[in-house]
């Protein structure tokens, strides 16, 4: 049963990735690592989720160092805002996706998570988010236009639908070569899964 679930998740994941690649902000704009990396991780995440923040601040820097920069893994960010419990999640995701159009997704990603406790509780996060434009050295006019016209919201929604189809029910959820890691797990668990996935991928070659 688990095997058939995983197979279906793989199929959905591939289909979702192909669909996303055809859209406005390509996955490459929110992918870290070499395109030739044998292992791909899709991180389905919510900018307002405190567990996602914990992962980004505590675990991901080590993973980036050990797996992404070494060419073993490419890391793809997929938006999965949980809007009923995180009312500012879409605004933050929009900010990151608009920044991606200026090739600044990851700097925006980092600053959003670092400052989550500031903009997360705000009734209207837009003014605060706009203060990040300058610090990220983003071109202001296209950024404001992108946010005002909600140009990336449809894509965020499509991301979220893809995440759900891939089996994610909470954030963060990581899709790693046909497997799901659910939650902000400790580094040791990621190492175990990524090492195993890398070994399997390179052994095939």
């Amino acid at each position, binding site marked *: 049963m*688990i*095997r058939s*679930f*995983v197979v279906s998740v793989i199929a959905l994941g591939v289909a979702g990735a192909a669909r996303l690649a055809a859209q406005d902000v390509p996955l490459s704009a929110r992918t870290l690592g070499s395109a030739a990396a044998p292992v791909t991780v899709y991180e389905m995440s*919510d900018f307002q*989720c*405190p*567990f*996602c923040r914990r992962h980004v601040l505590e675990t991901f820097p080590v993973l980036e160092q050990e797996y992404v920069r070494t060419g073993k893994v490419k890391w793809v960010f997929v938006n999965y805002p*949980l809007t*009923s*419990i*995180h009312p500012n999640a879409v605004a933050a995701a929009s900010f990151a996706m608009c920044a991606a159009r200026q090739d600044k997704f990851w700097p925006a990603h980092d600053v959003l998570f670092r400052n989550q406790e500031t903009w997360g509780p705000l009734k209207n996060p837009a003014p605060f988010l706009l203060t990040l434009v300058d610090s990220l050295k983003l071109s202001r006019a296209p950024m404001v236009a992108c946010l005002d016209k909600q140009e990336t919201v449809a894509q965020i929604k499509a991301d979220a639908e893809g995440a759900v189809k891939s089996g994610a*029910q*909470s*954030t*963060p*959820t990581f899709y790693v*070569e*046909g*497997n*799901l*890691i*659910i*939650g*902000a*797990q400790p580094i040791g*668990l990621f190492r*175990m*899964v990524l090492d*195993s*996935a890398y*070994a*399997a991928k390179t052994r095939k070659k």
Partner: protein
Amino acid sequence: MKFLGLVLLALLAGCQERVVTFRVSIPDLAGLETPVPDLIVTFLPYDRDSILRTLETGAPPRPHVGELDSLFRAFRTPFQRFLLLSDSAGRARQTADSVRAAGLDPAAPETAAAALASRLAAARTTLDAARRELWPTITAYRQDVAAWEDSVYRDYRKVTRSQADRIFATPVADTTDALGWGSAAITSARWWATARTVDPADPNREWYWNVRVEGDTVHLDPRTGRNRPRY
């Protein structure tokens, strides 16, 4: 692959949406269970009562409990008599009006309605007198109780904030609709639904709930709540 099929479940390490529906109902004056509209129900990611009990450990007892119970009893009698007569007088008036509208002799129902109206006026006088006599003492005792709560529960906010922060959850609230229903989007942590509303049969008592949320629907009713004095 060696790890194929590995699915890790760790709900407390992630954010998850969960919508809970709730309904609030209490007995009305006739004892019939009735929905409570416009009531705020708060979902807390901690057990409020348990925290309060812990904070009360070692504290002096709540002041004036015996005196307030006695004062509440003294007020309840004229209050409930007034409520009862108010209901009867209303119905008698309606009967008299119906008889008159039907073109029948209204003398008898009018006499009954007038008698009840007179008894209602007397009951109101008694109630007002009770209020004048008892309320200043009740109010003064309640101020002492409030001061006691401020002192004994002074760390409540700190404790609850720390508990909520630990699991990245903040309280959420919703207001019941006309039929007593409401809903709240909460995360996957453990939650308690808490609410209170004055008992319509006694202004010095209230219905209080602190119910552990299990499943998708929470019923806040006489079976899950407590009817308690409003100290």
